[in-house]
């Protein structure tokens, strides 16, 4: 993605200013979304209806919230594999908290998020202070979260259903016609953009992704930043789980399993380097929409699960080959 070759620069200077400043990966991702919509509209014009698009954005918002957290960690050059069961923990704990008398429904959402943050802090402590590779520590905390939830539920899906506030947040309408889940995603996105571009914390995240040593020598408390970043990821994963529980009106075992790989894929398809230090939040939004659309179109076309997995994998590989390649070894 680094445009060092002369001819590419000359092409870019001829583009209008707003395109010149944009990341080519983000543009490609948005281009692919348009292409996908155009191709699918040949199959059925329903794909371009406002209803369908809003429905897709609503489904995308659950993945979007999770991917925002995963992106913070990937920008550091780390990875968070604990997403599936931290999501489930958030959902189950929110539903469980609803049972605490009259205050229950009020504290349900914060309690779910706090539980996710706790797992995030555990991950962050292991990565930042104990210097365990993030892949391993998040893997282990995923198993611990799974173990806790299995003990809590007795191995079955819990009986208590999502409290009304949680359901309202995921499926209600504050503005008529616009699902609340989309508003939540927009709010989270605004916060993330502010965090990445306007705060010292955001700059430190990019700095650590490029070189943790350099960031440390520049006076950044890198270990604290890494720990907070993992806490944010845990909190957003749990929040995504809470929203999902509201959408399906209850928490279920393994409800988060289908979210880890799409979240990582969305972040990477949006042009964020998996090695850290480079990437823009808008790209992640594009990646989330792209993956949700792809999954939805494949299922509307009634492709069997096997075919969906294959097409899904192949599309990700092709898109990465188009713009996700690392520079050659010279």
């Amino acid at each position: 993605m680094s445009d060092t070759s002369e001819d590419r620069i000359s092409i870019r200077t001829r583009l209008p200013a707003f395109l010149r400043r944009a990341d080519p990966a983000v543009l490609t991702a948005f281009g692919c979304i348009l292409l996908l919509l155009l191709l699918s509209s040949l199959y059925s014009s329903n794909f371009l209806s406002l209803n369908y698009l809003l429905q897709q954005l609503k489904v995308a918002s659950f993945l979007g919230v999770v991917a925002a957290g995963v992106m913070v960690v990937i920008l550091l050059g780390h990875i968070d594999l604990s997403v599936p069961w931290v999501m489930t923990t958030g959902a189950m704990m929110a539903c469980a908290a609803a049972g605490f008398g009259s205050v229950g429904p009020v504290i349900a959402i914060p309690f779910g998020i706090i539980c996710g943050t706790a797992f995030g802090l555990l991950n962050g402590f292991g990565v930042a202070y104990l210097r365990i590779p993030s892949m391993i520590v998040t893997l282990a905390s995923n198993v611990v979260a799974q173990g806790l939830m299995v003990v809590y539920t007795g191995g079955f899906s819990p009986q208590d259903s999502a409290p009304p506030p949680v359901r309202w947040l995921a499926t209600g309408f504050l503005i008529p016609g616009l699902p609340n889940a989309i508003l939540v995603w927009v709010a989270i996105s605004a916060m993330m953009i502010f965090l990445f571009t306007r705060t010292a914390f955001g700059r430190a995240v990019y700095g650590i992704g490029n070189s943790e040593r350099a960031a440390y020598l520049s006076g950044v408390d890198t270990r604290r930043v890494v720990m907070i970043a993992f806490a944010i990821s845990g909190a957003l994963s749990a929040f995504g789980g809470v929203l999902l529980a509201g959408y399906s009106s209850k928490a279920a075992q393994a409800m988060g399993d289908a979210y880890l790989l799409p979240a990582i894929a969305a972040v990477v398809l949006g042009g964020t380097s998996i090695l850290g230090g480079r990437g823009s939040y808008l790209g992640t939004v594009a990646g989330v929409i792209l993956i949700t659309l792809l999954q939805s179109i494949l299922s509307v076309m009634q492709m069997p699960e096997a075919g969906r997995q294959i097409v899904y994998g192949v599309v990700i590989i092709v898109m990465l080959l188009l713009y996700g390649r690392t520079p050659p070894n010279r």
Partner: protein
Amino acid sequence: MSEWRYWLNEQRGTLMGLAIFLLMFAVYIANHPAGLTANVAQTAANKGVLFAFVAMAQTLVVITAGIDLSVGMIFILTNCLASWIVVGEPLPTALGVVAVLAAGMVCGAINGLLVIYGRLQPIVATIATGAVYFGLALLLRPFPGGSVNEDLADALTGRLFGVIPSSLVVLAAAVLLVWLPFRRSRLGRAAYAAGSSEQAAFMSGVPIRRGKFAAYTLAGLLAAMGGLFLTFFTYTGEAAYASGSGYTLWSIAAVVLGGVSLYGGRGSAIGAIFGAFAARTTGDMLFVFDVDPLWQPLLQGVVLMIAVSIGSLALLRVRNRLDWFQ
């Protein structure tokens, strides 16, 4: 300094893995109602060997400073394939075995091509290929079923001379025929060199691309051996997503327990085998201690957490704070 000290230093991770495994296995056997009988050893070996093959496959890739998140899916895909073609007379069975192993190698080679020549990051590239391999497995076996040549299956999961578990013999053969020749070859050295410093290896004219490619391909082969064994063990093929991703995750844990550095260039597949056995014994141990099965995942997680935290004791020896950051 004498020779053996260098050797000991190099093998420290492997020996740690061996020590962890021996300790856990000793506790397990001491508390097992039947003690160490041939039957107990056979069951433990059969279950451990599945983990061991997948962990060996993961090691080969991790040594090159990569990671293979599709290894469990290759394992599942070859299991489904074997449940179709490893059947019938001896000759078709043999051809079937060869075809299954070849399919695994092709899967590994595709990963290698994408990572080395496509210059994609291993994490995301193998996530995507893993989805494809799982889709193919589902295409082969939408529902669990199929069969396998039961004579061969019983021979390979049974006992040799009534004592030695034959699955262990096959595992040893895989180490002797795949791992050791690779470790000692020029390509194997190239894979290690690429893992420890790709730039330096490139400058020294080491064939890093071919070395890494060989590592990914052989990883596919070893995962396919695991898939074959799963078929011999269960007599069926099943495209279970949870099983595939579970094996991938535990293969990473086994690799770390066996002293292989996730940053590449250090460790050995033999250590990973002990790591895999140790990981497997955790599950069995909870069984002999009569722990409520509900608590099993939690205790496994806690054991895993403690095991990976032990490595951070090395931080106490760090003199320069900059060495915290790799």
